[in-house]
């Protein structure tokens, strides 16, 4: 084991991640702020002088996750695809549990973003409640889970198991991106034994959905056409409901298609936004 933020001379340096493959990264962190039972009761009722405490702390946590690179010297600026902040009011222990989950498809992990989100959400809770309670104590901030990337998955002992992702993470950038070869990896045949179609989401749609490639067994389609595929994708993962947002075009085996275009085994179906070349 070595410290990746130190170079051969032991000096701090930012790790060059340009050659790392992109993968789906997700981290969850949690922490708690202990407070007087009366403060917790006021918070729950919304009776604190600064107003909606939890909504403010949630926004603060999200903003903090996005600005982690400005706070932690050797962190990269990341385009997070998702930040979720959850609060649990624990009356028995007289504290608020704060949990943050950050996600992106990228080359570097998001555990610092999740930890920063929890820390700043806790600090904001302190700020919002300090008028009535100065003895609050922030603590137990730790990483719960981390998935994706070369170092493998991590789960803190005792951390609640996260739901298994239904959609495979993007193994690498499938289309032209910065520093990449400018090619879609047209992909292998279906990696499922049963007859299936290979689905690709391109460009802005891929980033909006956080999904690049997914294989869908034909047997899961009520109707074996593009409309049936869309319905099955939405059942598979709620992110695909965004296929209905704005204008989304479809090509089957690289020919423009419509909802009624029939599908057969090993077809390549691409969804993408309106084109903007030239």
């Amino acid at each position, binding site marked *: 084991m070595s410290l990746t933020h130190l170079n051969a001379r032991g000096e701090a340096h930012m790790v060059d991640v340009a050659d790392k493959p992109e993968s789906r990264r997700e981290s969850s962190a949690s922490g708690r702020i202990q407070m007087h039972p009366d403060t917790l009761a006021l918070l729950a009722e919304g009776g604190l002088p600064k107003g909606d405490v939890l909504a403010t702390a949630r926004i603060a946590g999200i903003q903090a996750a996005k600005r982690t690179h400005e706070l932690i010297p050797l962190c990269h600026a990341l385009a997070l695809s998702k930040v979720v902040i959850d609060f649990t009011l624990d009356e028995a222990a007289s504290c608020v549990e704060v949990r943050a989950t950050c996600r992106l498809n990228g080359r570097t992990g998001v555990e610092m973003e999740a930890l920063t989100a929890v820390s700043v959400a806790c600090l904001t809770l302190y700020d919002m409640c300090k008028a009535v309670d100065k003895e609050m104590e922030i603590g137990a901030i730790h990483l719960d889970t981390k998935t994706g990337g070369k170092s493998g998955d991590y789960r803190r002992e005792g951390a609640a198991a996260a739901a298994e992702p239904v959609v495979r993470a993007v193994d690498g950038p499938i289309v032209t*991106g*910065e520093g990449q070869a400018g090619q879609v990896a047209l992909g292998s045949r279906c990696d499922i034994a049963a007859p299936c179609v290979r689905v690709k989401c391109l460009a*802005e749609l891929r980033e909006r959905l956080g999904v690049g490639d997914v294989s869908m067994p034909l047997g899961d389609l009520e109707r074996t056409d593009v409309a049936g595929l869309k319905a099955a994708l939405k059942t598979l993962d709620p992110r695909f409901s965004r296929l209905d947002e704005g204008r989304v075009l479809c*090509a089957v085996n690289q020919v423009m298609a419509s909802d009624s275009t029939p599908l057969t085994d090993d077809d390549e179906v691409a969804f993408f936004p309106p084109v*903007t070349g*030239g």
Partner: protein
Amino acid sequence: MIRVQQAPFDAGAEQQALLAGRTDIGAVVCFTGLVRDFNETPEVTALTLEHYPGMTESALEAIVVEAEARWPLDGVRVIHRVGRLAPGDPIVLVAVASAHRRAAFEACDFIMDYLKTRAPFWKKEHATGGDYWVAERDSDHADASRWEA
């Protein structure tokens, strides 16, 4: 001839290649599109072009075939770049040769209009205020619809 590539191109060399050994061509129109430093936001610092390999080439081929059916052409070259480009960089080349100028002008115009609305390229602009995907433009669709009979 259709090419999708990351490397820059030389419009002059491409035009010469189109005309090489020919004395029956009376007109050549060569359009080069460049990356602007302003578009959806005022300070665009770079552009990343994504495409759908395979479909991109066949879509461009179909557009050229349609142009050749509409006008008597003696040669067409379409080159579109992908990957990261900087303001001022050439991004697309359409060179059309014909016996007479009207066919060359119109076919070049037609190919660009159809390329912008039918070929699977997507632009992501990198600007001082952040990165964003470029939205489609109604004016491009209006331009393309001029050619529909």
